[in-house]
């Protein structure tokens, strides 16, 4: 780890001012990803601005029936919050599918959105990586890429976003609230993370002078028909090979609204609203689910070690929909 200076922010405005005026400064909150990256010399900030004592640690009900998650609420306190458990069980399940209890006790909701890929080459400073050092090349495309992306890739980067929580937030159409020197913004979840394109070093559309203050959940929580299915190499405490958040509204056996978000397959939580629309108004059958799965992986591309994910993703979509419609009892 490099040496650095440390300051503690006392209010949001001064925190924003500190990073806006010192480009070598970064925020630290839970630190579970940043400290790790600093130990690996992947992140080398000259200055840490500790935001853990800012008043962003509450979960509040919104007037429109939604719920506001303060950016500094821990993943644990979010997953076990009574409103989240009752109204947004998909989010609770997704959070609890990620990391370990110790990490969830430290990690914050805002930080979860900003965690970086666990691509082995991104972490290994001895290898080229366009995300870590733009222009050096991608070691994963022709390297070991079992964990890597099959959708939305570019010839610059095939990294995946590692979060489980974000997959559920994508399905729930959450909104990310941010504050910067130019004022406040509300970013729809689908627009928060980026695909790699030609600039894979940029993970999100958060501005350099902006801080996440909260994540808003719309009123619709899909508490009756949901599933979070995570497929991984061991039963617990591992990143997803493929994960699927399924959220449905149903009238009897008829699906009236369907949301599907995938993790472990792309640089951001993957939504395909055209494919989701195929389920609107149909009776829930396995044939329909397979057609949707097929549509979602139609443009998928494997890179050798990860090509199995194409079939795996399709099957995981079918299974998640079976769980959400209760055609299959939940595992």
């Amino acid at each position: 780890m490099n040496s650095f200076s440390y300051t503690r922010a006392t209010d949001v405005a001064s925190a924003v001012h500190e990073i806006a005026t010192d480009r070598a400064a970064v925020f630290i909150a839970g630190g579970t990803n940043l400290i790790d990256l600093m130990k690996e010399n992947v992140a080398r900030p000259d200055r840490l601005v500790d935001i853990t004592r800012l008043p962003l640690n509450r979960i509040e009900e919104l007037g429109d029936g939604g719920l506001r998650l303060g950016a500094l609420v821990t993943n644990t306190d979010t997953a076990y919050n009574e409103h989240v458990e009752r109204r947004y069980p998909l989010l609770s399940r997704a959070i609890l599918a990620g990391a370990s209890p110790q990490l969830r006790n430290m990690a914050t909701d805002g930080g979860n959105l900003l965690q970086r890929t666990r691509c082995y080459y991104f972490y290994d400073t001895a290898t080229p990586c366009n995300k870590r050092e733009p222009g050096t090349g991608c070691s994963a495309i022709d390297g070991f890429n079992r964990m890597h992306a099959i959708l939305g890739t570019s010839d610059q980067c095939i990294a995946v976003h590692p979060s489980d929580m974000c997959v559920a937030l994508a399905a729930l159409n959450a909104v990310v609230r941010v504050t910067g020197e130019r004022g406040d913004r509300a970013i729809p979840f689908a627009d928060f993370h980026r695909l790699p394109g030609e600039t894979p070093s940029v993970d999100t559309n958060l501005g350099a002078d902006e801080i996440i203050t909260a994540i808003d959940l719309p009123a619709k929580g899909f508490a009756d028909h949901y599933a979070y299915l995570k497929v991984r190499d061991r039963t617990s405490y591992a990143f997803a090979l493929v994960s699927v958040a399924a959220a449905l509204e149903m009238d009897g056996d008829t699906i009236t609204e369907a949301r599907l978000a995938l993790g472990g397959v792309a640089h951001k939580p993957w939504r395909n609203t055209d494919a989701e629309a195929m389920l609107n108004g149909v009776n829930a059958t396995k044939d329909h689910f397979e057609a949707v799965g097929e549509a979602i992986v139609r443009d998928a591309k494997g890179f050798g070690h990860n090509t199995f994910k194409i079939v795996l993703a399709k099957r995981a979509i079918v299974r998640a929909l079976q769980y959400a419609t209760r055609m299959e009892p939940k595992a």
Partner: protein
Amino acid sequence: MDSRPAAGVASRSPAKLPTTCAITLDLNGAATKLDVAPWTTLLDALREYLDLTGTKKGCDHGQCGACTVLVDGKRINSCLTLAIMHDGAAVTTIEGLSKEGALHPVQQAFIDHDAFQCGYCTPGQICSAVGLMREGRAKTPDEIRELMSGNICRCGAYPNILAAIQQAMKVAEGSVKP
């Protein structure tokens, strides 16, 4: 972390680095002052500056759980947090669990069930189990396994660790005498 390219790499400002900063921890029940550099992790502060070597450094990356301690009653990985961030916090390590010479029920249960082989992961396992019991979310064996998954045991003592935690839970409920 954000949209800036490789944060902190491009412009290494000639920041004045404070060598150390004074903090106070409520450490195992005693107010403890120490001077730490900003980059000293809580784990290193405990082991290198406070001579509390019960907390172990395993992977140093939050993947093994050997460094688990309780901060304000909650279990965390002490390797992935900076000591300076916890000024004023209550920190409980394995050394702080026994009371008046009597082992904590989880410590006693680990002995009763031979819940270790080499013992390196044990302080982290025990602190994690104390945190788990406080959280009150694990009831069944599968739930205990899932919520102890942040603690790796290379010797594979998991069946006995599970049995020890179940015993400690029964002691806590009052259905079994310690």
